[in-house]
Structure formats: structure tokens, C-alpha cells
């Protein structure tokens, strides 16, 4: 009985096409006619480009044909079919190119697979967005938008280990608002918040691309400035301090006490040492009348 079975490509639930060197269709089975929604005589000798979308044509030129010419096959590739009514149908194609330049296409409709993929892609997009939001929540201070204490510590530790290898220096500024409790007590917490936001903006405005600016806690900010000399770091501290002294915020006179420490070339430090030293400098500023920048040397 088996000898009586005559394989007929029209019986298969898959499209079969032969495309010549000029990318014109020279053979196709019934599945393709149904896909295109057109009878045989119109399909033959028509460029394949007519039956796939513009995007798919770009994909064909930039990926599928170069791949065929390199490997002779291109498998499991999704493009979009365009039928004679202008409807778009996602299809998977497997293509083989022979040495005479004829390409043999197998075409399968993949509407459901495409739906699944779209769902997966949009879920992925949503997850990416959520993870970014969570990252932002976990790393920034909600009031000022600056790095929070934890992220500051993470990033500074990274910077310290990079600096260990590169033999350059960086500075750390501890900045504290003088008599901030008094501002809160006299003008209320909302005004206190305004002051903190104003300062965060000022520090951000003066930061270089690689500087770290953080709200370390309460009314204390820490700035980390990579690749900077002692003098430049001191000047920046003074620039910030004078800017605040000369420009009242919401008609309130604010001043800053600053502690500065600069690392030494090729000398290893850790975050605790740095914070301890800048804190010492900050304490000196507070103890000697506030509204000033003091420098402490690393031990």
C-alpha cells in the first residue's frame, strides 16, 4: 500500500517556497497561497519582498541573506508575512540556499507563539522597570534624591579599591548644617526639609561627572571627589560654604561646617578611617566657631 502514497506538498500544514537569485518566487505550495490569499499565477514570479513587511525586508537584507551566504542555512527565524489584504501574520522560516543561488523556504504560522513572546517581552519590560524603581528606592534618599548612606558606602568602597590600583587620590567632604535643630524648631520641619533640598541641589550643581554626593543622615552630607588635589578639594569646599553663607535659603541664614580629608598616593585606606578622619576635621570646624572648612590628615 505504501507505494501508492504519493507525497504532495499541498497536503502539508507548512508553506514551501522556492526563491531564485533575483529573490522572486518560482514555486510555492497551497499553504503559501492561503497565507498570501492569492491564486498561483499571481504569486509566481513576484518578488518575495512583496509578501513580507518593511521591517522584515530590512531584517532579510541585514541578517537573513548574509547568514545564508555564510552558512547556507538560516533556521527558526521569525519575520512578518503580509497577505494581499495587507494583514500581518507572524511566521517562522527555515531557509536553505543551494549553490546555484536558489533558496528553499519552509514557512510556519506562529500566531500563538508570537502572542506568548509578546507577553513574555512585556512582562520582562515591566520587571525591568520595577527592578529599576526598587533599585532607586534602595539607593537614594527620598527627600533629596541624593545617594543614601548605604549606597554611598557601597560606591565609596568600590572607589577605594579602584584607587588602590590606580595610584591617584580622592577627597572626602563631610558637610554639616550649623544649628539645623534651631531651623527646625523655629521655622518647622517643612522649612528644614526645604533647606536640605536646596543644599542637595547646590551640591549636585557643583559636582563633576564622577563625584559622589550623598545625604549621610539628618543634616549631614558627604561628597566624595575622585582624582582631585588637596588644594582643589579645599577650594570646592570653600566655594560651597561661601555660596551658602551669602545666599539665605527662604530668608534664613544658613552656614555649613565642613571637614575635609584627602587620600595620599599609594597609601591604602579604608572607609572607616576616612569617615573617622573627616569627622575629626568636621568636629574641628564646629569646635572653632563653625561656618568653616577644616582639614585633617590621615594617620
Amino acid at each position, binding site marked *: 500500500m505504501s507505494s501508492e502514497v504519493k507525497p504532495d506538498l499541498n497536503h502539508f500544514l507548512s508553506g514551501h517556497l522556492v526563491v531564485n537569485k533575483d*529573490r522572486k518566487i518560482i514555486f510555492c505550495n497551497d499553504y503559501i497561497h492561503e497565507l498570501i490569499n492569492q491564486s498561483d499565477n499571481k504569486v509566481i514570479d513576484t518578488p518575495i519582498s512583496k509578501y513580507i*513587511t518593511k521591517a522584515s525586508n530590512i531584517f532579510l537584507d*541585514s*541578517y537573513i*541573506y*548574509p*547568514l545564508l551566504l555564510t552558512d547556507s542555512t538560516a533556521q527558526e*527565524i*521569525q*519575520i512578518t508575512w503580509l497577505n494581499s489584504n495587507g494583514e500581518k501574520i507572524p511566521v517562522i522560516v527555515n531557509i536553505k540556499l543551494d549553490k546555484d543561488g536558489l533558496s528553499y523556504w519552509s514557512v510556519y504560522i506562529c500566531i500563538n507563539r508570537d502572542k506568548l513572546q509578546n507577553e513574555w517581552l512585556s512582562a520582562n519590560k515591566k520587571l525591568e522597570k520595577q527592578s529599576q524603581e526598587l533599585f532607586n528606592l534602595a539607593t537614594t534618599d527620598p527627600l533629596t534624591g541624593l545617594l543614601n548612606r548605604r549606597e554611598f558606602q557601597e560606591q565609596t568602597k568600590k572607589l577605594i579599591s579602584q584607587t588602590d590600583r590606580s595610584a591617584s587620590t580622592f577627597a572626602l567632604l563631610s558637610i554639616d548644617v550649623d544649628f539645623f535643630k534651631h531651623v527646625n524648631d523655629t521655622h518647622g520641619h517643612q522649612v528644614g526639609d526645604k533647606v536640605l533640598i536646596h543644599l542637595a541641589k547646590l551640591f549636585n550643581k557643583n559636582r563633576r561627572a564622577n563625584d559622589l554626593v550623598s545625604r549621610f543622615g539628618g543634616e549631614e552630607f558627604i561628597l566624595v571627589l575622585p582624582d582631585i588635589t588637596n588644594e582643589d578639594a579645599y577650594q570646592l569646599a570653600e566655594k560651597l560654604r561661601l555660596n551658602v553663607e551669602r545666599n539665605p535659603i527662604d530668608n534664613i541664614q544658613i552656614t555649613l561646617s565642613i571637614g575635609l580629608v584627602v587620600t595620599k598616593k599609594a597609601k591604602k585606606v579604608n572607609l572607616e578611617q576616612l569617615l573617622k578622619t573627616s569627622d575629626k576635621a568636621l568636629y574641628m570646624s564646629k569646635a572653632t566657631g563653625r561656618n568653616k572648612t577644616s582639614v585633617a590628615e590621615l594617620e
Partner: protein
Amino acid sequence: MGLRNMSSVVLSNNVKVIGPKGAPTLMLAHGFGCDQNMWRFMLPTLEKHYQVVLFDYVGSGKSLLTKFSKEKYSALEGYAQDIQDIINELKFTDVTIIGHSVSSTIASIASIAMPNIIKKIIMVCPSPCFLNCPPDYKGGFERNDLEELIGLMDKNYIGWANYLAPLVMGTSQSQELIGELSGSFCSTDPVVAKSFANATFFSDYRHILQDIKCPVLILQSSSDALANVSVGEYMASRIPQSQMVVIKAEGHCLHMTDYDYILPIALKFIEPS
């Protein structure tokens, strides 16, 4: 410090400087989905006359992938920053840029940021905006087309991770030529390719054309599925010091398919005798 940073840009962007020292500086900026390898046909001639600077944008070719930031490279300004960083670190003072496709826009952004250094731009198959913006601009694509293209990149993820041929070489090129051109595919990371594709295809930089202060040569292909002749004409009419030459050719990669033809035109523009 200078040295350290210099070597870091050289590494991040896989910068190569070739040709005679002291010769005028010519920077070659590759287009979407490719790398500096795409200039290989023009290079033998150019390196005789110029100090040629080749590089890969971060995320393309042999650049340092670790330097890629989705935020920075989601807009063409991020890529323009790559060009500016290279110029700054290598201390070039007088630069001509040849940019392919989207790199023409990237070079324009850089030139507006450093008008005293970037003195001339040659644009190969440029487009400031791939979208149709009726009534007076036809970028060639509807938003749907381009969204679908990005979708195809997602859905054929693994393929794009391996290679991406120079975009659109024209269907009527001989198979031998396409075979040769795609012989060495450009490697592109899929996440990066998608960011670059988004930045390239959905941006509209028509408004900066009038701010380009340096002389510009526009080389447009007479039959290019990505950038049609009217796009070149639109650009030429808005860039103050521009001239346009339409090359009778097929495809979007004149510097690979018709380099013999465009080389003398480019050389004449760089150094008018």
C-alpha cells in the same frame, strides 16, 4: 592621571590611530549594528594621506562592554560623548569626521559641542529622522514599521547576538558582493544593539541641522531603503554650509559597495586643491 584616562578611552572605545603622524586627523565613525571593521575598504587609501582614527562605540565591536550604560546610550548624545572623549583624551585639535548613517547625526551633535575642533563632516547615507513626519518630511518609516523591527530584534535574539551585517546593502547587489561584505559580520551585543536601535530609529534630530557650523558633504545613495534622496535634500537645505552628491548606487553602505567612487569626492572635500 592624563595617561590613565587616555588609555581608558583607548580601551573602552577600541581606538586605533593609524597613518602618518602629523598628517590631518580623520575620524571614521561606524553606523548602527556594526564596528570600525566596516571602513576596511576605504582605509588603504585614507591612511596614506591622513592620521586615521578608528573606534567602536561603547557596546559595539571590541569596545569595553562594561562601560555600557543603558541610560547614557539611550540617546545619541551618549554616543556623541564617545567621540568627544576620544578627541579630548587624544588631544586632537583639528578633526574631520566621516560618519555612516546615524553616525552623521552623532558627529553633528559632537561638532556642535566642539565647533573649534571638528572642522568638517562627511555624511555617508545620513538621516536625521527615520520616521515620517507629515506633511513635509518623509523619513521613510511609520512608527509601526520601526517598532516591528525592534520587535524582530527581540524575537530573534540569539541570531542578533552572534552577528549583524551592515544594515541594508540593497537587494540587487550581486550575491558575491553581499557574501564578501558579510564575510566578517560585525559583532554586537543584543542589549546594546537594542539600545542603539532605539536611539537610532526613534530619534528626531532635524532641529540641530541649522546649528551645524562646519562645512558638510552629504553623500546619498540613489536607491537606499533606509535613507532616501529626499532625506539628503532636506538636510542639505537646512545645514548652512552643505553640499550634496547623489551617488548612483544601491543600498545603504556606499563606503563598502562604492568606495572607489566616493573616495575621490571625499578627498577633494577634505582638501580642496
